[in-house]
């Protein structure tokens, strides 16, 4: 349960290049909710005015359905939608914009891979190797596919420090492993997973790798070509964009060979009652009218992130995480949940003698918004023997004063419960 001692020491002063006080002014929610200490960005990030305005402006000025109309308004809408795809391509440094598939979120992206690539390529006894750090979204889709195909789910364990046990992972990567599906940053604890190493090990055995980038994409630079993975998913709403939009990136050679998973309009070349010819990727996987405004809003959010600078964001979050580990680590009766050697952006903790739900309620009364519960990672919490934790998670708008407010609110909870 320690974790504090193992975390790297960071300089007390977070990044000089990011100014959270100025950034906070970009987010209207802080103006509308004075005093709000928002520490739940891992659940969903707040939205900058630029994103909100872009979505509103699109509906006011450029809205029509895409890929259909011959009229200019529809052509303009289609252009904006496809430009958003190109924007995501640059964000991930994907080789080809046709590798970018718009989905509802990371959950749908993983379900797409399971139902399309998985249903085609995985059979009885084939193993999907994941980790104990996974979010339910990277467990349940494979369990549903298991019922149809007889595949086997193999979870690689965490070690005593709370990080992925790489030696165990290597041992479990065996002749029956047909897919590796791993998170890049554990949402429940903040543990960073060495996905580059994992991809190298898996590829040496010809095994493709899916990376759940939900928590990593808003926090660290992501280059899917450098990562050498095969599928990468993330959610728009965690990257300061709208809800209901997310991205599946897939290597083109794999996507070309994948059957559609949902049928409908927009994903076909021609339809007769006898036969239907499907579109090429990405449109093959985007049946029906897509979330056009979501994609356009997401593109603006990615602009916002890159304007701040992704290295600068990563440095800021690392410095602030270090500050939080130190600050909470020094508190009596507060135990940080172990997160391995490298923790980023997420501080999961227990307050001795107070249930996480009670902690979160008292924190809320002090205007500190955190999450309490199992964080959609029940297998991990079972492993850690915790029914629930309290989780504070960081965004670009947070600074040391937010951590100080968190610490003060925890102390208030302790005072109240010890009376």
């Amino acid at each position, binding site marked *: 349960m320690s974790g504090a001692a193992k975390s790297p020491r960071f300089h007390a002063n977070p990044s000089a290049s990011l100014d959270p006080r100025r950034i906070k002014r970009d987010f209207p929610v802080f103006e509308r909710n004075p005093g709000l200490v928002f520490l739940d960005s891992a659940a969903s990030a707040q939205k900058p005015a630029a994103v909100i305005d872009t979505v509103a402006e699109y509906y006011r000025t450029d809205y029509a359905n895409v890929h259909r109309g011959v009229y200019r308004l529809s052509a303009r809408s289609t252009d904006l939608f496809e430009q958003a795809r190109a924007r995501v391509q640059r964000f991930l440094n994907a080789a080809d914009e046709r590798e970018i598939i718009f989905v509802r979120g990371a959950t749908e992206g993983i379900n797409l891979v399971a139902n399309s690539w998985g249903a085609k390529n995985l059979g009885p006894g084939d193993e999907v190797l994941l980790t104990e750090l996974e979010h339910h979204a990277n467990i349940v889709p494979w369990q549903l596919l298991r019922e149809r195909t007889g595949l086997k789910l193999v979870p690689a364990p965490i070690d005593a420090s709370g990080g992925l046990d790489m030696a165990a992972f290597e041992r479990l990567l065996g002749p029956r492993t047909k897919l590796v599906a791993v998170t890049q940053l554990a949402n429940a604890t903040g543990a960073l997973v060495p996905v580059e190493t994992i991809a190298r090990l898996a590829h040496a055995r010809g095994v493709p790798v899916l990376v759940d980038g939900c928590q990593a994409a808003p926090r660290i630079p992501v280059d899917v070509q450098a990562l050498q993975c095969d599928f990468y998913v993330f959610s728009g709403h965690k990257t300061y964009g709208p809800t209901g939009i997310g991205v599946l990136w897939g290597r083109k050679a794999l996507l070309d060979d994948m059957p559609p998973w949902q049928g409908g309009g927009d994903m076909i070349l021609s339809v007769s009652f006898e036969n239907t010819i499907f579109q090429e990727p990405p449109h093959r996987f985007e049946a029906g009218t897509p979330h056009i405004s979501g994609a356009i809003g997401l593109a603006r959010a990615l602009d916002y992130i890159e304007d701040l600078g992704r290295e600068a964001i990563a440095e800021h979050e690392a410095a602030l995480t270090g500050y939080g580990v130190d600050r909470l680590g020094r508190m009596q009766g507060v135990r940080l949940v172990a997160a391995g050697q490298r923790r980023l952006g997420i501080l999961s903790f227990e307050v001795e003698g*107070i*249930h*996480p*739900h*009670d902690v979160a*309620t*008292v924190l809320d*009364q*002090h205007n500190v918004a955190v999450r*309490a*519960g*199992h964080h959609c990672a029940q297998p991990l*919490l079972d492993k850690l023997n915790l*029914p*629930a934790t309290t989780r504070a998670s960081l965004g670009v708008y947070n600074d040391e004063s937010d951590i100080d407010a968190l610490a003060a609110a925890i102390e*208030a909870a302790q*005072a*109240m*419960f010890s*009376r």
Partner: protein
Amino acid sequence: MTIDSRELYQDIILDHGRRPRNFRALAHPSHLAHGHNPLCGDRVTVYLELDGNRIKDVSFEGRGCAISTASASLMTEVLKGKTLAEAEALFRGFHASVTGGEMPAMPPELEDDMERLLPLAGVKSYPARVKCATLAWWAFEAALKSGATGATVKTE
């Protein structure tokens, strides 16, 4: 500390949360049920021993937050010795008090017991916490329906 905190976490709630009464299994329950709040991981098992139409003994085990533990503890205190009809009236009254619903008419002989449950009424300002306060009661109701084999109720 804000005034709100004390309204929700009254002394009696902290007391019952820390030292729950009737916190044990019954050796020979005629009825039992498990309550589970998957959202927060809270679990409670409610045990009943009925003597005809009367609750001869009632107890609980489990783990949960201060609200759910205190609620289960207070519930066992007021239900012991009651008839099933009285228990149902108390549940209706309790439910109304924690959800901000209209309070049903309470027979005079139950007014004191109803009063004992009112410290939990503070949760009505915290919609996310209402399920914590009602978990044990739902398990009590499920126990009556399922008998000694036990059922599981979930709140989400």
